[in-house]
């Protein structure tokens, strides 16, 4: 397993009227982050929040190219980003113990915080398709270039780690500095991860390790 220190590229926030940052996602232009009773769109270039949607937003956030998905209590809401309307809801696989959310390969991937698992879920029905075991509490989840990454955060210790999606083996970890935690995780598709900072009320960008392509 490769182990290195996470390199923080940029910090956004804290934002007014935002005590906590839960899930984060990226729609190609804006970072969306969940802050309890709102989803906020943040412009990564200017650091300004450009708009927000009033919707219960208690944990993970994801974007499928068209819709936002947001965990609230024990369900996952499908939201139209243009109107802010909740189009559908499905039950969350951990019944409220859910924490991270990612979209990949046509399915949703949901972190089960205390269960230390990641569930793959049918986005239409909420049915669990398969489950990957981690050995740490799972906060944010993201897929990028066929790699499955998730955040962990226990007390003072937090990291972002890459799992083998078949075996659940930890392949690589990026350790966060002490006291800085990852509550939500999303790749920008390039060389950055966006991380929710929990009760710091911040969103941080960290460097994603580059791969030498074969």
């Amino acid at each position, binding site marked *: 397993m490769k182990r290195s220190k996470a390199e923080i590229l940029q910090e956004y926030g804290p934002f007014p009227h935002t005590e906590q940052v839960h899930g984060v996602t990226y729609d190609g232009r804006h970072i969306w982050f969940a802050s309890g009773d709102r989803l906020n769109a943040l412009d990564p270039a200017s650091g300004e929040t450009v708009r927000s949607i009033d919707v219960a937003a208690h944990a993970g956030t994801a974007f499928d190219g068209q819709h936002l998905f947001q*965990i*609230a209590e024990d369900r996952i809401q499908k939201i139209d980003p243009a109107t802010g309307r909740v189009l559908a809801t499905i039950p969350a696989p*951990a019944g409220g*113990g859910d924490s991270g959310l990612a979209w990949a390969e046509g399915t949703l991937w949901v972190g089960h*915080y205390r269960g230390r698992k990641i569930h793959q879920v049918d986005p239409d029905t909420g049915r669990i398709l398969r489950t990957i075991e981690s050995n740490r509490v799972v906060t944010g989840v993201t897929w990028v270039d066929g790699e499955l990454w998730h955040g962990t*955060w226990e007390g003072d210790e937090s990291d972002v780690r890459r799992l083998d999606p078949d075996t659940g083996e930890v392949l690589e970890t990026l350790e966060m500095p002490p*006291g800085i935690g990852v509550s939500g995780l999303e790749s920008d598709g390039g060389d950055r991860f966006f991380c929710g900072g929990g009760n710091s009320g911040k969103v941080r960008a960290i460097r994603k390790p580059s791969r030498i392509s074969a």
Partner: protein
Amino acid sequence: MDSLITAAARALAAGDLLGVLNRVALRDDAHALALRGIAMAQLGDFGRAKTLLRSAAHAFGQRQAVARARCVVAEAEIALVSRDLAWPTKTLEAARATLEAHGDHVNAAHARNLEARRLLLIGRLDEAERALAPDSSMPLPPATRAARELVVAGICMRRLQAKAARVALAGAESAARQAKIPALTAEVESASLVLDTPVARLIGSGGERPLLIEEVETLLASGALVVDGCRNVVRHESLVVSLATRPVLFALARALGEAWPGDVPRTALLARAFRARQSDDSHRARLRVEIGRLRAELRALAEVRATKQGFALSPRRAGEIVVLAPPVEDQHAAVLALLADGESWSSSALAIALGASPRTVQRALEQLASAGKVQSFGRGRALRWMTPPVPGFPTVLLLPGPLPSD
């Protein structure tokens, strides 16, 4: 943190206690236990709350030091509200240090306020003042600020600094209004009522009248010689002679003070100081001895003159002599004063607060109970005492976000 914990924490912050329980009632992880503990505390079930918070602290373990420390602070607050004054203060101190080290200034300030409230309750004013969270360094949320100002007001009241107490109460009131917690506003209001309630009686030439804190403050600064029956001292300006451990001498001083500028006959003094109905020669001899002792004690303040039928007091520098007496003279007024807060007290907590022996307090409580002035419930170690319920304001728990938020 997962999604239901976030939702439950938000419900708690909004005061929706049933919303908290609905979401985490069946969960036994550390976060859920802590949330349930705080909700139960706010619902008044302190016993259950204590158990839940203790299990939560245990479940968080050493690795989640901040979350664990918040549980310790919440448990300390429950101990304080249930008048469990024997609570280990070292544990609270350690939790406060942990919170400070991790930058959780709000909860650290809350822990300081709790320690100051405990010290205020047991009458250690200087220590309470030192324990209080510093005023300036970090902006505190309104609820924490209100709690702090309430402690400041309490210290000022006990020191008879009415003006400073009013300033602190005004601060507490506006902070409580900002916090939008009705129970907190009510607590500030009931504290303000104390300032408009007589705290003592003035017994002077020919009559007596009730005094407010302000009037006591004015009186003490007026240059009069005060025989202070609230504290059993004789004072003139900054010179204070304590007779707290000499009840006979104080009884004589008070009788002489009440009669000033007149004198008090020997028989009357004997009746007051020794409860002697008839006097014989041995009583007279004893009175001479005690008057001699009083003369020595008060030397710097007043002269104890022999008159034809008895004795009289004349001040050395002060223009007049007045007597300050407690508003109610009951044999066990101090015990009743503590029970007047409407909480249920254990006899051991009363003993700590009064600095008296548990046996003395026990005896006082038994006498008060047979007179119907106090009542008890529970058995053995759980036995608690309180005054018969009067309409008033409940004390509330003010936990400013002691939630594990990571």
